[in-house]
């Protein structure tokens, strides 16, 4: 008889989805040792596409999520995401929460008082990670994907007397 099938595509799929999201940090985050700052991570979404916000409006949707590798030289707080914009599919009774265009994600950072003290000019490091997302446009949803993220951080010695 007629059958409907759900096709679950697994991670090993050979073809990566088109890149529709880029992540950048316009300038290095400067932190004085013993102090804190917030990194501004800019997420640019290709025109015509949208990604699910964080938090996503439904538990089965894939929210945008920035994951940075821990670095012993700096402490990271919970990533702060902007509110999503409501987006309603025709014929449905509730809104999705999505991001479109460009958004800024904030990463609270804190440098221990001892950080960078061994170097005269300070300490430069890069927090590496990815932004996970699922993108859709008017006619298609792409596989969940991720874009590389690099957050340059400069820790300066505390020169206060």
């Amino acid at each position: 008889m007629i059958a409907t099938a759900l096709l679950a595509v697994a991670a090993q799929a050979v073809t990566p989805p088109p890149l529709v999201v880029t992540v950048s940090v316009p300038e290095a985050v400067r932190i004085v040792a013993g102090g804190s700052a917030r990194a501004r991570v800019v997420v640019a979404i290709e025109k015509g596409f949208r990604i699910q916000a964080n938090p996503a409006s439904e538990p089965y949707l894939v929210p945008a999520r920035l994951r940075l590798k821990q670095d012993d030289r700096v402490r990271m707080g919970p990533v702060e995401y902007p509110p999503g914009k409501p987006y309603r599919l025709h014929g449905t009774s509730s809104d999705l929460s999505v991001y479109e265009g460009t958004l800024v994600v904030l990463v609270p950072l804190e440098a221990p008082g001892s950080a960078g003290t061994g170097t005269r000019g300070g300490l430069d490091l890069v927090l590496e990670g990815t932004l996970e997302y699922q993108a859709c446009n008017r006619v298609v949803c792409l596989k969940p994907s991720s874009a590389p993220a690099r957050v340059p951080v400069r820790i300066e010695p505390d020169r206060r007397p």
Partner: protein
Amino acid sequence: METKTLAEGWAKRWGFTFPVLLDPDGAATSSYAPAGVLPDLPRDQVPIASNLIIDREGKIRFFSLLDSAKFDARLVALRARLDELLVEKP
């Protein structure tokens, strides 16, 4: 994308009563991407979030894309096509 464990959990959570195919390399998914539909997209991406009816011979008898502007939330078109196909003689 989904592991077997994740897919099993999902099927249980939502009470799926139909078989779920794991497609590790995307080959099955690609084979159900109709030729000419979204030609610029990798073939294993096309069926994601689309609706298909596949007959007993494995032929696609219905295919619709997401189409958010005219989203068919209640699958009216798919149900209508299914009703047509069900009265066809084998």
